[in-house]
């Protein structure tokens, strides 16, 4: 019986110590990890969407709380006016979650450009959504206020052949981004004023 108690006590203490240490390290590295992700995963996509912007969109960002979730928006300044934002949404792709960055022009609510960030789609098929820039340009100029669909479902996006699931996932993420955007638009416009100088 005594041995039993000793086992339980030692294991509990060890787990508690381990939990405490990990929590401390996690808190200590959280911001740094967020920065690294921005720099290496999202950064290149953001820069590509906002090609020609006069500011550093990775640095110029703001957060708006949407219910329980905090959404991050990246700001692009074109011709001295902060009129374009990027927001990231996700949907479930063919394998794992697919992350999409959508650049929206707030003047006419149209998509200026888009880019897939995190994904684990099939190389050569679904992965084209991320690697083939000509496919994603189809989203350019489409209004985000309506639902975005592939042609099979009566929409205007030509699906990647052999990867309808991935194409639908991208459309779903884009539609989702559109809904969030129209819901938060007043706040977005308010925040953008601070960036126009």
């Amino acid at each position: 019986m005594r041995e039993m108690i000793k086992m339980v006590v030692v294991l509990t203490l060890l787990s508690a110590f381990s939990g405490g240490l990990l929590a401390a390290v996690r808190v200590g590295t959280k911001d740094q990890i967020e920065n690294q992700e921005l720099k290496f995963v999202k950064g290149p996509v953001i820069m590509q969407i906002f090609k020609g912007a006069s500011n550093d969109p990775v640095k110029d960002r703001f957060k708006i709380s949407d219910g329980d979730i905090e959404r991050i928006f990246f700001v692009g300044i074109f011709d001295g006016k902060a009129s374009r934002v990027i927001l990231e949404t996700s949907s479930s792709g063919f394998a794992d979650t697919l992350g999409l960055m959508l650049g929206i022009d707030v003047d006419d609510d149209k998509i200026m450009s888009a880019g897939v960030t995190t994904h684990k789609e099939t190389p050569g098929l679904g992965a084209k959504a991320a690697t083939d820039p000509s496919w994603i340009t189809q989203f350019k100029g489409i209004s985000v206020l309506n639902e975005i669909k592939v042609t099979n479902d009566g929409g205007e996006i030509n699906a990647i052949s052999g990867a309808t699931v991935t194409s639908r996932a991208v459309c779903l993420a884009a539609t989702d981004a559109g809904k969030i955007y129209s819901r938060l638009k007043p706040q977005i416009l308010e925040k953008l004023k601070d960036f126009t100088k």
Partner: protein
Amino acid sequence: MAKSITSEFTKGLWNEIPPFRLVLGLCPVLGVTTTMQNGLGMGLATTFVLICSNILVSALRNLIPGKVRIACFIIIIATFVTVVELAMQAYAYQLFQQLGMFIPLIVVNCIVLGRAEAFAFKNNVMLSAADGLGMGIGFTLSLGALGGVREIIGTGTFYGASLFGPSFQPFSFMVQAPGAFVCLGLMLCIMNMFGSK
């Protein structure tokens, strides 16, 4: 038999060098050594885990009940592995992206558990630290060497720097999984030729 710190340290460098002499922990050895940088990064991460877990296991060896020692070792090792993972994510994100899945897999690396069970649980803190350091450096050097050979032949670069110029046709078999086995086998063979066992 009196054990000296020096002999415990140096045995990890040649007589019991982990992947080649003990033939332990082959999963990361084969998996990540596609380039020298990956090999060294993985080796350093494992070294840190080895030293910390050896010291802690050795310090607690009189407190840990024999029947649950493996569970305690796993808690200790897993804690340090997660610390390494978070630290790498925060400060060496590109390496983290390269190594990916193999970092959490250090938990089940037989070398780490093997040294905790076979050495640290029976010896004092100083000796265990020396053992961990020696084994870790031996592991790092082995991975670096294997990675270096595979990188030179497989991609024609050495630590990222091009060696042979554009006319070199890389022997890409060496950076794929079968090449890892062939290369490891040849290196084991060479080690056995020179070493007196």
